[in-house]
């Protein structure tokens, strides 16, 4: 099985954005991820290609963050007309930021990139059972934070 780059481009782009919080740099890193993936000579027929792709993306983002001139960026305010929507997005992202980093990643992979539990298990190297448990815990945590923000009103 190989990867359809066109189909996964946006997901990897979003994933890098989730890590780096800058659109322009995220896209650079996403493209670098695909180039590395292909350069490995393993584009054709490799086991767990999706897990391999996400691992490259993660490591590429980590490498970027390790650079001496890297400064953590504040979230970009994306062009949006509806102020309420912008505010809601900010609240949700801030709530997600309160979660432990592994739970943040699981929430992102499951609910933003909409990966199957099996694929997430391959990417993270954690059992399906553990992922389900952590996701449940993460959602409970988010509900708790968002209840304070009157999200469910």
């Amino acid at each position, binding site marked *: 099985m190989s990867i359809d780059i066109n189909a996964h*481009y946006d997901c990897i782009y979003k994933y890098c*954005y989730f890590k780096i919080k800058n659109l322009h740099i995220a896209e650079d890193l996403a493209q670098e991820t695909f180039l590395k993936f*292909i350069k490995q000579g393993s584009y054709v027929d490799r086991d767990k290609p999706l897990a391999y792709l996400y691992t490259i993306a993660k490591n590429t983002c980590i490498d970027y963050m390790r650079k001496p001139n890297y400064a953590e960026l504040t979230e970009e305010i*994306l062009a949006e007309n509806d102020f309420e929507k912008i505010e809601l997005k900010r609240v*949700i992202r801030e709530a*997600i930021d309160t979660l432990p980093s592994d739970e943040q990643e699981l929430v992102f992979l499951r*609910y933003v990139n909409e990966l199957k539990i099996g694929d997430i298990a391959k990417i993270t190297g954690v059992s399906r059972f553990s992922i389900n448990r952590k996701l449940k815990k993460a959602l409970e945590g988010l509900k708790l934070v*968002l209840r304070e923000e009157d999200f469910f009103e």
Partner: protein
Amino acid sequence: MNKDKKLKLEIKSAYEIPESNRKKDFLINLEIPKINFYEFFISQIKYIRKRIFFIQLVVMLICLITLLSIDSTSLNIKYISILPSAIPFFVLIIATEISRSISYNMTELEMTTKYSLGQIIIVRTAILGSVNFIFLIFLLISLKLKLEYSTLILSLYIFIPFLLTCFGSLYVMNYIRNKNVNFYCAGVSISVSLANILLYNATGNMYNYLSVKFWLILLVALIVGVIIQAKKFIRSTEEYNWNSL
């Protein structure tokens, strides 16, 4: 909408980002490495049905066990005339695999790959043929150990029925292109096998009955015939048009 569903939807929309304007250029300029010929060759092994290799092994083992179980002191060429009669079935095993794309109308599917149907058939035949060739060499060595005939005579003994069946099967596949092609190939194999047994019974040892020169000329003629028929078969695979089956 329940709370969980609402929350999941909001999480998704919280990370919505503007559509990339560099994606199209990136994908256009991306050079994806293509599979090389060696990888293509190896990959074809996976697509050959495993039972084909299994049947080849079984036929070979039957031949070897039969040969080894015959008492060498009472050995008579007539007793082992069964061996070259089994050889056409080696060819039949290959023929059933090669004609599969015709039998199951797979041609269109295979035409969409980087390599043409002709190339795919050549590779698959090469794989199966190599396995058969190894088996035939084993058989030749076993016969050499049992019989006091020259290697040349024993080679004729093995390769003439083999090549005759190859020629007949290819000829059939060139002229019959339908789901029954396997039955016709089976007919060829059985005919060669029976002819072999009958000629042995009639002549004692037909390779001694006629001069070696005759059999060598026949061998060369069969090799030429097989090459011509194989070329014709490969060329014909390039003549298929989409949806013409």
